[in-house]
């Protein structure tokens, strides 16, 4: 049990490419931290630096009280679950799980006890004598988890552990990982590019972009108050509508002060919009006239893709029963309280 602390951590590859540009945050003991971002944003590199399989170019990585920058991965008291599971193909499941303990000279009966206990928790007891080759993707994933659990580490590190599973299995495994982490109370750092996975798993969400942290916070907090336009479009699906406005436009639309004269970006989530008949002018909400371009009906809800009269594309989420025909005129209305206003460069929330 320990907290994981990063202090201005950087990764600079030979050749000068800066993959991680100074990241600082602390994962409190027992918390589930999810690092999310598009591919190439440096999240995996950061995780690998915590694990110790990648060197830290600058800054400080701490696990518990100990600075571990120069500590071997095996001495860091962490366990890692890899995207492709990285099971030893020539070893039985039992040996895969026992290998780390054997290298640590754990007594044989203790190893046996821990492996069987982990196998029981993960329901893979009947697979212990098989080789990884004879397992399905989901079973391999469990074995990889088992290998991490038996170590009883101070922190779990997950590197996109669900991305090789099919959609259905991904959801059930996601729930199980969450339950398991809560039951064990082990500090965890989890990397994913899937915002849904991030939202559902995290106690603490770290949104990254281009080697930098964009926002840190509880998942709902990040969803409700995105700090930048990047976070606004990355978290939530479909992505938030962003309308670039110049000069007095936002002030007109929002009817309040504090909007800079050089313009702003106004964001409205598709789920905060409502589609009404063209020409409706509600008093306390804003109305955006549009022409419907396409409709996606997914059952419980529909996504209406339209073009605003001022030219921007817009997505509106409507109930599954409401489905306007393409070409139809309509208006999207939104409550003023649900608008997100960002500075013109998108880097700041106003």
């Amino acid at each position, binding site marked *: 049990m320990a907290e994981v602390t990063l202090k201005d951590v950087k990764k600079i590859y030979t050749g000068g490419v800066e993959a991680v540009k100074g990241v600082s945050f602390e994962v409190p003991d027992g918390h589930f931290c999810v690092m999310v971002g598009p591919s190439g944003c440096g999240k995996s590199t950061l995780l690998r630096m915590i*694990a110790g399989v990648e060197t830290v170019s600058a800054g400080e990585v701490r696990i518990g009280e100990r600075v571990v920058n120069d500590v071997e991965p095996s001495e860091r008291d962490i366990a*890692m679950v890899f995207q492709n599971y*990285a099971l*030893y*193909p*020539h070893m039985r499941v039992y040996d895969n799980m026992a290998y780390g303990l054997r*290298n640590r000279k754990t007594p044989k009966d203790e190893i046996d006890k821990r492996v069987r206990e982990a196998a029981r928790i993960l329901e893979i007891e009947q697979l212990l004598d098989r080789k990884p080759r004879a397992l399905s993707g989901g079973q391999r994933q469990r074995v990889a988890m088992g290998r991490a659990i038996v170590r009883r580490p101070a922190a779990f590190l997950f590197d996109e552990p669900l991305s090789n599973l099919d959609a259905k299995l991904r959801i059930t495994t996601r729930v199980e990982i969450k339950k398991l982490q809560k039951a064990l109370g082990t500090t965890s750092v989890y990397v994913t590019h899937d915002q849904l996975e991030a939202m559902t798993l995290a106690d603490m969400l770290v949104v990254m972009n281009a080697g930098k942290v964009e926002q840190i916070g509880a998942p709902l907090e990040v969803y409700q108050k995105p700090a930048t336009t990047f976070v606004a479009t990355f978290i939530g699906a479909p992505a938030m509508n962003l309308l670039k406005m110049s000069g007095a436009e936002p002030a007109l639309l929002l009817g309040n002060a504090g909007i800079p004269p050089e313009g702003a970006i106004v964001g409205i989530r598709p789920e905060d919009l409502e589609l009404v008949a063209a020409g409706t002018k509600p008093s306390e909400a804003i109305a955006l006239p549009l022409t419907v371009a396409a409709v996606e009906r997914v059952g419980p809800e529909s996504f209406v893709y339209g073009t605003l009269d001022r030219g921007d594309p817009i997505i509106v989420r409507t109930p599954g029963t409401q489905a306007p025909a393409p070409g139809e005129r309509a208006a999207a209305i939104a409550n003023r309280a649900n608008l997100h206003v960002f500075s013109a460069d998108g880097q700041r929330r106003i």
Partner: protein
Amino acid sequence: MVENRPFGNIVPHVILWIGIAIVAFPVYLAFVGSTHEPSIIANGQMPLWPGGRFLENYYRTIFIGTSGTTREPVGTMLLNSLVMALVIAGGKIFISILSAYAIVYFRFPLRMSMFWIIFITLMLPVEVRIYPTYKVASDLNMLDSYAGLTLPLVASATATLLFRQFFMTVPDELVEASRIDGAGPFRFFFDTLLPLARTNMAALFVILFIYGWNQYLWPLLITTRDDMQTIVIGIKKMIVTSDALTEWQIVMATAMLAMLPPVAVVIGMQKLFVRGLVETEK
């Protein structure tokens, strides 16, 4: 292509059987020759059916040898060849797997230069460097010894290259998982890499064993004593080109015996050999 034409299968079978006959007939003749009295072949009559002196001829070949040119029992030659082939095959695998491991998994100065130097030696087989190699071997007093027979042939760029390519296909995550599991370089090598390379090693062993067994030029140079000669050299020496009589039944028996170990290795390791060449188990 899966086709089921009962008559269509006959043509390929006929072709295959003709091919087999062409390859196998000389071997059969050698076997037949090794079971007859010496006088029969010497008279120029080559029978097509085995004679009755199988046991006698092979006993004489293995334990006594020819009475003329080589005077050495073929048993000794077999032993020499076996030692040479085993040490060459084993040594080549041992050295090249270690160098490939160093080149792939360790960062040290001039790593790539080392790799290219090893690679370039592909262009320098024994035949090219025969004089300097002989000089070195003789200066080190390795003439007429197993060390002299094997050591100069024991480094292999081909095998190093093969292992390097194999190691590069092992996922990096496996190395990282090992590091997290507390396995150092030695443990990783023995616990993970060697078991994974098992089939490759077997395939390579088959190829290298036959390579070692068939060596002719180098043993011819390095050995002068009769009790150090290998079976491949022995056969050649038994065939007398001067006026004396060649003991053909012994030559044929020796040829048969010389064929057996490579055949045994190929048959015994066939499964691993094929898997090593086609399958990757990761």
